[in-house]
């Protein structure tokens, strides 16, 4: 074998080695509850952002069929909008994040991807509360939104709650305890603790 062939073989082995080493260090971080991820305007450090993202978002008693991430560079950093959909509901979970190159900061969310049985159950719990029922009788179907523990701890306890809201009236529901923990009415100073 001449020297050139030997060197080519060596380079191939080196390339394979580097590839193998890289694959050892960068495992697929996508959790089992996410089927597909779609980026619009993929930033260079998308892998790092995704890794952080999976510790910040989670579906409610279902799986995300598609997680759509769009990014927008602003003077404050990278603004990310994450829209997640599930097969079990036609509503979406929407998260807004800011990414400063190191950390992902959740700046807003609107989470409505709740499977219908849990959504209906939350409405049933809400209208089981007589104060709520008297205010919303015949008012049509409410919105049901997931409230994350970081928000809920200011109103009840650091756990996932569901907000069932009609126009001007809202019930904060603890789905585990099956109780209405606070009622809000438009115009009142603050929610009434139950």
């Amino acid at each position, binding site marked *: 074998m001449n020297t050139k062939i030997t060197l080519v073989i060596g380079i191939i082995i080196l390339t394979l080695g580097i590839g193998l080493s890289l694959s050892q260090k960068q495992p697929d971080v996508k959790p089992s509850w996410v089927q597909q991820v779609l980026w619009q305007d993929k930033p260079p450090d998308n892998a790092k952002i995704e890794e952080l993202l999976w510790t910040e978002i989670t579906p409610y008693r279902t799986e995300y069929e598609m997680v759509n991430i769009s990014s927008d560079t602003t003077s404050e950093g990278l603004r990310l909008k994450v829209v997640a959909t599930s097969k079990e509901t036609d509503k979406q979970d929407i998260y807004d994040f800011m990414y400063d190159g190191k950390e992902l900061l959740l700046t807003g969310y609107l989470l409505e991807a709740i499977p219908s049985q849990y959504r209906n159950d939350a409405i049933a719990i809400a209208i089981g509360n007589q104060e709520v029922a008297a205010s919303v009788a015949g008012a*049509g179907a409410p919105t049901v939104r997931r409230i994350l523990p970081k928000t809920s701890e200011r109103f009840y306890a650091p756990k996932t709650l569901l907000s069932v809201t009609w126009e001007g009236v809202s019930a904060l529901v603890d789905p585990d305890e099956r109780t209405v923990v606070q009622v809000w009415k438009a115009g009142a100073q603050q929610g009434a603790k139950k």
Partner: protein
Amino acid sequence: MSKYASIVIAILVLGMFTGIEAGNVAQAQDVVVQEVGAPVMPPADQIGNITKIDISPQYGNFRLQPGESKEITVTIRNKEKNAVSVKPNTVILPYGGYMVDAGWITVKPGSADIPAGGSQKFTIKAEIPKDASIGSSSLQIAFTNETIPTPYPQPFPNYIHAFQFSVDVWMPPKLQIMMPYISDQLEAGKEYDYEIKLKNTGDQAIGISPKLGSDDMYYGGPYGMMAPALTEDSITITAPTSIAAGATDAVKIHVRVPADAKGYYNGYIDLGIDDPSVREWEGRVQLNFNIWTQPTGAFVRSFNLTEAAPITVEVSSNNYYYGYPYAKGTNAKAPSFETSLEGPGGKAPLTVNKTVIRGNVNMGGDRPPWEMDSASIYQEMGVQYVVTYKTDGTPGEWKLSVLPRNTQGFDYSITIGG
């Protein structure tokens, strides 16, 4: 083969394996760190002495059936300039009466020293025994014993560095209730029928004995404490005594609204399902009715025309919040108006010029405080129906009549000319 070429290949191959091995060594080091038995941080005497560590994620929920298990990885990041020792401690919060057994929860590693700026992953695993009963329990995994100091004794320490999670042990109910609530607007003097469909997914028949709930039915409405608008004899339940295996059947509800009924009715039907996997409240169908008296006479507004001019009348419903078309009753209807205009020459031909469905998109208006984090995200808050009529007006006295249906209020405008 040339001697030099062989040396190059040998170095390259060696380099490749060294790279892979380096990864394994790093993992092995992780394991070594995990095995360190470290002293736990002392409690923080003052709020300013809190150890700076991050827990990610901070919350979790396991929904498991008996015999199932699930894991979650929690990362602790040390933001201090010194190493920090952490030792996870499972704390079961006995809210709600149901408690998981501490033995069902394991956290690995049992302790760790995290170097300054470093991080450590912990795996939290819940294993539910096959004979576990159903229920939901709240837990904390406290990584240090630092607590938030409080002026009064607390029933449970409020740990600062804790992963909060809940374990919901459940079994899929064999009898599925297709709709757990009926919410509707009813008209006095009319009768309504509803069906609650039940599907038995089990392999045995399941008995049911539905009856109307009998909680204290007086409640505070917009007009103070009121008796319910319907009495028990207004609601008739017809149901089979059991649902056969694999079958779907219906519980039929007939509501007869007395002609003089006014106000609200809020109650429930306890289906009396004979299935231990159904919790007491899960076998209920909530009833929520607003008894509404449809006005028989129209609203009338008179106005004068001094000269001939086109008249445009616009009538719009109140904002209705994803209104009746989405309601679950059979009485679901969109708002509508019977409108007429009478002038000096009798009834004027009134043509619908346009119908507008107007939305209201909110980005931070009047909303419950717990939904404030959704500010800046577009949300449709309600839909309004607007109908515009046009006719040619002649001088004289005119009368606009509007009879609204399926709306509890409306706006109108009369434009003369233009």
